[in-house]
């Protein structure tokens, strides 16, 4: 048929123009390597650390790149590319002694100049890094000698160490790093245990072992990230052995997987808090009693056991309890009678009607949570209209701070509360979508920044959490647990509380 | 099987017949009931003779031919009786045996040459197929034989046309191709099912001549199916008259025509318009109507002269020109034009019938539509009942249209199938605000009675009426606005002969009582002769001859007029042996380039009002 021939020609025409450019082949991928197969829901957006804004991308970037410092499993900051560090008396300059003999994947030596290059790059306006603010506390970076670098802050900045562990501040090769974002992503050069093998965006990405890695070499020769957006498809792949590791197992599947042969479940309490936000600038949430009423009307325990299949950790404070220094605050007890009483006192004996905005598919079972909360609030007479705009519109609306009631998750890239509390709790915070204002909280937040003493700072942070808990601008539902599924013969996959996954020690036995 | 009670042809003593049909009964299934549409038919086709089956629509004549060929759908039809062809009963053959008989022993040509050829294969290939299916031939042998056949059917430049597609041929040429295909295997019998009905009269003449010639050359028998008594008279040795599925009379053609006994035969013959039958008369004449049951002639009233020549004409057309642009090229620019109507002028007086005759594409229908501005003419002046039609704006045009109404060819399509006929008839009256609903109702009822229908039929829909009835309704609708002029565009052409006669009589009656003027557009010379006061002959968009009916028909001057008249088959078997010696040609195309300047035309007046185009 002439049809098919013409189609083919058309296809080839379009294809050669576009396809060839799209196969991102960096170094040659050795044949016959059986990689560790990891199925993830979302593809990486970029391999340039300074342009990363989401977890799935971070999970790739951190295999290839390293930061100066990284938290260990206990949440303590330990040196990675930096061997040791000290703080000046005025608490404004931090000196880092770098590990020697390290090379980037492109052969460039790792040194103080590379560190300076990296920080200067993210801070430069021309870079237009979406997370330039993660280096905002840094005033300047100075090269003292080949392996010593001094980072100066504008004011004493307690969370600096934690901040330096953020994936946006991973160190990149100065020679590769002259290219930005997409261009850099073609041949990313970090110091990590893996380097890029091949990337077909939207489909598959392979990282291969960096044989010149300075530390313990990766246990697997390669790890293959396959994009499988469907939750159930990932689970099936795991069960059938098409994947060795899968991310984000839906809670409902956990029981099923636990009983399945050859499969195991890895659960890790995470930094992400799922909460219901209330807008204090809109009626009736300007009334504390109403907010308390809502807190008592939501049965967080039942949500966790029912909707979440117990995949999650209970708590009342905005920061996850696994974050070092976070306060252990109990959730508001479920008490519909009290709730009704409070509503009556506030002048709403028959309840009221409210629009409740929820996300769908962004957090585990978010839609079901919304629907369950809707039903629970109905029992105390509050009629909830669920609204679920798609996330682009939702985020724009949130940032206008006009949404009366919303369901949201809050993660933490570094495990230090400063970053997220400043954004979410401070009256000026961009993430303070409910217009929460408390002068005491604002003051404490400013103070803790410069409090380098850990215990004292932790107390200040605890007070922030307690105060915001008492003011009820939000009701924390639980902290999300991360659930990974693995084949039984997989060893060494490290799922971190900050939602990162490390494959360096991972292998199939 | 019932014993036949149908008339039979006398058994040929000398030679046994090629085809012998006995007690043929064909039934169709409709709504799970089998209904016979051909009953107990028996006849023979002798060698080298032509037998015609004649009848009106629904008489079963075509079903008969398809039954013989066994081309009817198996599921919804069944055939009883014997069909004996060259000694074997076709009815008992297996499908595969029958397939081999088709095309080899008996072949067939059909009414619609336009649709009977496969549009996507070259004609040469299609004819070759008819050859190779019955005997193995190499490609080149087949090609040579096809070209020989095309030559045989007088297709000019046969070799070069081998690879052309059917749409590149005119209707007449396609019918020749069909004949060539049918003759491919030199069949003993050719069944021709209304082979000329869809063709213009001059082309019809050519095809009839061709069939006769080929029959003489090859010595085959022909079974000719037609509704046209003129054609029968011209071609058939023997003739079978069919009526509602049965043969009512059969015998040698002369006997039937001259001594037909059956009332239906006589009704049919009396209704057939006969060219030249009006010689010596100046006024129109009603058709004689014979009762189908009794064979009695109904008395005909005389026609009085209604033409008001002294008054100013009710319709006056001067220098009317109508063209259709042809676009082509990347930007669809105008590249040529169809000069459908070129500079024609005529007058129509109250109570007068002016007929415009001509063959397809001559511009006669365009003239009718241009006069009412259904088509916007390029230039010319039209005055209807005092209105300057070309100068009218839209509302005025609507009002003007009260004075001139149209009746169209296809009675099945000219009524809205979704509207009760009462509503349809009343609609123009109400739309023009001529009176109340009640008045409209009364007037519609009155008109329906006038056209021979019943007032209580007003709530019925078009599909519940026959073609003749619908045409009566269309006439009633046209009369609702009390028009001065009625443009009847092939208004009776699609009707069966007997119905045609009745509707023509109706038109005459209405003219008598209402003093209507008719612009009667038709290709049917015989009907035109019967009902016109004056006649205009059109050819390639121009009037080539115009004048009083008697003058034009009795003293035709223009070569085209003569050609047209000589081509009309005359229902008189005594003229059967005559051949016309018409050349193989086609109507020329009225498509002209943009640069074309129409020549200045002059007319010569032969006698009073009888004008003939010079040069």
């Amino acid at each position, binding site marked *: 048929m002439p049809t098919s021939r013409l189609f083919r020609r058309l296809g080839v025409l379009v294809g050669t123009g576009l396809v060839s450019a799209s196969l991102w082949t960096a170094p040659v991928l050795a044949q016959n390597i059986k990689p560790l197969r990891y199925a993830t829901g979302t593809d990486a957006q970029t391999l340039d650390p300074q342009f990363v804004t989401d977890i799935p991308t971070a999970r790739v970037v951190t295999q290839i790149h390293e930061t100066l410092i990284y938290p260990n499993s206990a949440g303590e900051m330990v040196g990675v590319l930096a061997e040791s560090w000290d703080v000046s008396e005025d608490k404004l300059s931090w000196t880092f002694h770098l590990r020697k003999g390290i090379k980037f994947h492109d052969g460039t030596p790792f040194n103080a100049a590379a560190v300076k290059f990296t920080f200067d790059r993210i801070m430069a306006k021309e870079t237009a890094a979406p997370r330039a603010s993660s280096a905002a506390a840094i005033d300047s970076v100075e090269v003292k000698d080949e392996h010593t670098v001094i980072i100066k802050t504008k004011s004493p900045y307690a969370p600096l160490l934690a901040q330096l562990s953020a994936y946006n501040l991973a160190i990149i090769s100065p020679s590769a790093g002259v290219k930005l974002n997409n261009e850099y992503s073609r041949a990313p050069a970090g110091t990590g245990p893996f380097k890029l093998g091949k990337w077909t965006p939207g489909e598959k990405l392979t990282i291969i072992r960096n044989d010149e890695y300075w530390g313990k070499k990766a246990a697997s020769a390669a790890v293959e990230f396959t994009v499988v957006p469907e*939750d*159930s498809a990932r689970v099936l792949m795991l069960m059938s052995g098409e994947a060795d590791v899968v991310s984000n197992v*839906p809670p*409902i*599947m956990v*029981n*099923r997987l636990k009983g399945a042969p050859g499969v195991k479940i890895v659960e890790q309490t995470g930094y992400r808090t799922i909460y219901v936000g209330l807008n204090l600038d809109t009626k009736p949430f300007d009334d504390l009693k109403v907010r308390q009423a809502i807190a008592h009307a939501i049965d967080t325990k*039942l949500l966790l*056991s*029912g*909707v979440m299949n117990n995949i999650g950790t209970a708590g009342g404070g905005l920061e996850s309890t696994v974050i070092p220094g976070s306060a252990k605050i109990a959730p508001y007890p479920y008490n519909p009678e009290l709730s009704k009483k409070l509503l009556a006192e506030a002048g709403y004996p028959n309840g009221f009607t409210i629009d409740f905005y929820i996300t769908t*598919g962004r957090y585990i079972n978010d839609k*079901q949570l919304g*629907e*369950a909360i809707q*039903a629970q609030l109905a029992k105390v007479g509050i009629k909830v209209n*669920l609204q*679920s705009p*798609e996330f682009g519109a939702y985020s724009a609306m949130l940032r206008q701070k006009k949404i009366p009631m919303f369901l949201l998750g809050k993660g933490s890239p570094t495990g230090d509360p400063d970053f997220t509390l400043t954004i979410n709790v401070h009256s000026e915070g961009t993430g303070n979508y409910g217009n929460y204002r408390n002068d005491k909280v604002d003051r404490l937040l400013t103070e803790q920044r410069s409090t380098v003493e850990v215990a004292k700072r932790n107390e200040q942070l605890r007070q922030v959490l307690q105060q915001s808990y008492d003011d009820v601008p939000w009701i924390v539902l639980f902290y999300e647990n991360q659930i990974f599924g693995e084949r039984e013969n997989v060893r060494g996959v490290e799922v971190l509380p900050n939602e990162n996954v490390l494959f360096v020690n991972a292998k199939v036995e | 099987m019932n014993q036949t*009670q149908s008339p039979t042809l006398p058994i040929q003593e000398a030679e046994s017949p090629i085809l012998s049909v006995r007690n043929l009964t064909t039934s169709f299934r409709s709504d799970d009931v089998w209904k*016979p549409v051909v*009953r*107990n038919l028996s006849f023979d086709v002798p060698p080298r003779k032509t037998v015609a089956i004649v009848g009106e*629509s*629904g008489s*079963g004549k075509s079903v008969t031919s398809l039954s013989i060929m066994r081309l009817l759908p198996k599921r919804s039809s069944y055939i009883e009786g014997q069909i004996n062809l060259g000694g074997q009963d076709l009815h008992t053959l297996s499908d595969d045996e029958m397939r081999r008989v088709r095309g080899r022993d008996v072949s067939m040509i059909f009414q619609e040459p336009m649709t009977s050829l496969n549009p996507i294969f070259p004609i040469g290939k299609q004819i070759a197929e008819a050859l190779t299916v019955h005997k193995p031939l190499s490609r080149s042998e087949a090609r040579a034989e096809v070209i020989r056949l095309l030559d045989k059917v007088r297709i000019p430049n046969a070799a070069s046309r081998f690879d052309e597609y059917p749409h590149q041929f005119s209707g007449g040429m396609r019918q020749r191709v069909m004949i060539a295909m049918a003759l491919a295997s030199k069949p003993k019998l050719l069944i021709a099912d209304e082979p000329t009905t869809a063709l213009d009269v001059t082309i019809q003449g050519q095809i009839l001549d061709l069939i006769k010639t080929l029959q003489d050359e090859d010595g085959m028998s022909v079974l000719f199916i037609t509704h046209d008594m003129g054609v029968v008279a011209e071609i058939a040795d023997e003739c079978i008259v069919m009526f*509602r*599925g*049965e043969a*009512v009379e059969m015998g040698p053609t002369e006997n039937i025509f001259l001594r037909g006994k*059956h009332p*239906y035969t006589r009704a049919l013959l009396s209704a057939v318009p006969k060219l030249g039958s009006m010689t010596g008369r100046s006024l129109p004449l009603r058709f004689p109507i014979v009762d*189908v*049951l009794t064979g009695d002639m109904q008395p005909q009233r005389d026609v009085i002269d209604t033409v008001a020549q002294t008054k100013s004409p009710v319709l006056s057309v001067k220098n009317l020109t109508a063209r259709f642009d042809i676009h082509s090229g990347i930007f669809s620019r105008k590249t040529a034009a169809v000069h459908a109507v070129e500079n024609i002028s005529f007058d129509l007086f109250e109570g007068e019938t002016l007929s415009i005759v001509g063959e397809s594409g001559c511009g006669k229908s365009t003239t009718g539509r241009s006069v009412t501005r*259904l088509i916007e003419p390029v230039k010319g002046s039209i005055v209807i009942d005092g209105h300057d039609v070309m100068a009218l704006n839209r509302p005025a*045009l*609507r*009002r003007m249209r*009260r004075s001139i*109404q*149209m009746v*169209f*060819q296809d009675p099945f*399509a*000219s*009524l*809205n199938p979704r509207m009760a006929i009462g509503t349809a008839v009343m*609609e*123009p009256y109400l*739309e023009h605000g001529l009176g109340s609903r009640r008045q409209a109702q009364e007037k519609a009822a009155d008109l329906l009675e006038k056209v021979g229908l019943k007032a209580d*039929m007003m*709530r*019925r829909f078009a599909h*519940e009426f*026959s*073609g003749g*009835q619908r045409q009566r309704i269309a006439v009633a609708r046209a009369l609702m606005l009390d028009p001065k002029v009625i443009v009847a565009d092939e208004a009776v052409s699609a009707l069966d002969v*007997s*119905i045609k006669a*009745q509707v023509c009589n109706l038109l005459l009656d209405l003219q008598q009582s209402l003093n209507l003027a008719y612009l009667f557009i038709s290709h049917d010379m015989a009907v035109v002769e019967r009902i016109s006061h004056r006649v205009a002959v059109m050819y390639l968009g121009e009037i080539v001859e115009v004048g009083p009916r008697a003058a034009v028909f009795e003293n035709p001057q223009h070569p085209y007029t003569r050609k047209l008249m000589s081509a009309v088959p005359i229902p008189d078997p005594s003229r059967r042996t005559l051949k016309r010696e018409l050349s193989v040609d086609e109507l020329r195309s009225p498509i002209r380039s943009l640069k074309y300047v129409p020549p200045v035309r002059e007319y010569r007046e032969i006698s009073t009002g009888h004008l003939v185009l010079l040069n």
Partner: protein
Amino acid sequence: MSSNANLMSGNPRPAPVAVEEASRPASSRIRQILKQMRKSKFALPGGAIVLIFIILAILAPWIAPHDPYANDLMAMLLPPSAEHPFGTDELGRDILSRVLVGARLSLVEGLFSVSLAMLIGVPTGMISGYVGGRTDTVIMRIIDVMLAFPGVLLAIVIVSILGPSLVNAMIAVAIYTVPIFARLARGSTLSVKEEPYIEACQSAGMRHSRILLRHIFPNIASTLWVMAALRVALAILTASSLSFLGLGAQAPSPEWGAMLAAGRNYMLVAPHVVIFPGGAIVLLVLGINLFQDGLRLALDPKMAER
């Protein structure tokens, strides 16, 4: 001409064919259509399915065994039982009740979006075809542009603009169905326009509005109805596809597509959460399509199917 069936005496068979001048008694058009529809083996079962769904949809609030919105987090994803014949969903809601109430939404989806599309598309197409000339060219170009938008994606973009909701999904489906009706109406108008009875109207000096409404519309209507029936089925599919993609009906609406989308994650552990709403869509749409097939036979045997 008077009628005489049998010239030959003694023939027992009845008059064979429809004879000239015979007039059959008026039979109602509906009866005629129903009679034609019986020729399709499927039309009546299809009609019955649709009718049952309509009845269930109307009676849903009274016959639903449970509150379709009441969740019971202690009774999630229960397999079908006597208490919950279709089982329960991920929030412990009764699936049977939700499917019943969802029937209303699906029927509304189909009818609303197709009605809207016809309301816009049919007059546009009729005017385009009837008026012709430059008007026609302009309208057809706009329609070409609309048709060049890749199918469902147009609906997705529209829903993104308007915000995801069932009503907006229906509007989106309607908008993307408009050019289909416009094209069909134009094509049918063009062919009906050539009919002599339209010319007869024009020559009788009737107004164009009347010709369009009284003469052209009734004669293109059957084609439109057949297409409408087909499009109702497709609209239900498309709207539920949008809901499935999260762009249509929003939680906790028991729209079938949305139910399937929600249930998809549970299909490995509790296949009933997808089987029942999925089966309901298939059954309803199949019913409409079966009915449509018969309707096509009855109204418009030659209509090109799309």
